[in-house]
């Protein structure tokens, strides 16, 4: 009886470990660490800036995160960008 309980507990622990490993792997692939995700957003934002805004003008040479929000909000209206474009371009201009 005691031996059966030990085996059951060991099986539970092993299955939990396996599930944990699988979940950890999944979360790693689905939700990359914040810094990695921010870098990816910034790279995509640069691409979208070049694609949309860069057709008419260069990016500002010197822009602070405080100024970037107003600049990108204005560009969203003027260049008819989507909310996602706004978010990504903001990540590029104000990482």
């Amino acid at each position, binding site marked *: 009886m005691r031996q059966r309980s030990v085996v059951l507990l060991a099986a539970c622990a092993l299955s939990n470990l396996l599930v944990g490993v699988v979940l950890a792997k999944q979360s790693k692939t689905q939700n990359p660490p914040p810094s990695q995700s921010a870098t990816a957003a910034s790279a995509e934002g640069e691409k979208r800036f070049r694609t949309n805004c860069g*057709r*008419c003008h260069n990016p500002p*040479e010197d822009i*602070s995160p*405080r100024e970037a929000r*107003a600049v990108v909000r204005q560009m969203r209206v003027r260049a*008819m960008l989507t909310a996602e474009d706004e978010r990504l371009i903001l990540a590029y201009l104000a990482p």
Partner: protein
Amino acid sequence: MLRKVLSTSLLLLAGSSLVSAQENVPIVSGGAGFLGATNGGASFFQPVVAPVLSIPLGNQWLIESRADLRGLISREDGSSGPYQGQFFGTLEYLQLDYNATSHLTITAGRFLTPFGIFTERLSPIWISKFQDAPIITPIGTGGSYNDGFMVRGALLSNSHYAVNYAAYFSTLSTVSNLESERGAGGRAGVFLPSTRLEIGVSYRRTLQGNHFNSVGMDLSWSPYRTPLEIKGEWAHSPSGYGYWLQAAYRLSQLAGSDSFLSRLEPVVRMQQFVRSEHVPGDSLPSSNAQLPEFGLNYYLPHEVRLNASYGREFFSRSTDVNIWEYGITYRFLFPMWPGGSR
């Protein structure tokens, strides 16, 4: 206890709004410049400041405004006599934008006419490759400024294509500096991100005095592999029809990214207007006109640009003229109050 909870909540609310206010700091941007021109022997000088005020409010609202403050210094009799100066101040737009959804922005107030691409996108002095607006700009723009309502946005947008739109109604206004014509219209464009090619069509129905239609098409192409920009417009109204086509090539690809030559940008623009009938006050050439122009821009560090151009305007019913233009422009951007992390 209740008081404690309330005061803590108020503190948290104040703190969050302070953080939000810091993130949404209003900015002043725009361009300043000193422009000079000799048109058919008559010389003009124009000091210009065109500030743009942008005030983001929360996550969805924006107040934006642009003024054009300009002096005109010219000789009393055109090409002779003492110089005299005049001042012109224009409120070009003052609008409240509400980003209702990812694909819809609602605008109210005074705004630039979404007809073609020049007025809305290329008219700032630090963007425009030539000092003068294309000669067909008055077609379909109703004086360039409208007082009314507008909806705009990206109807569809993905990595292969984007469809954008703008539709508006403007009312009659005779208020000084806020003049507007009664009219309605809009623009729709298809943009292909992979090639950076956009083609748009525009329409305006003027609903004041003699009602009439204006239609237009525009093209913008900026290939990724080469620093070349090609832009153009065609427009038609009862006054006549015409086009402009412009190509600009930055020498950075030939001369390396940091060399003296890489900052040079030769530009060429061809324009033509064909007069159909005389319409008083349409701000278009009184007869058929052709205008080839050649320009050279030089981009200095710190957002300063030098430009020079030569053009010859051929009129069918008057003397042809040479147009020499030169100037310096500066693009600025700063927050309305200091502080925070720069």
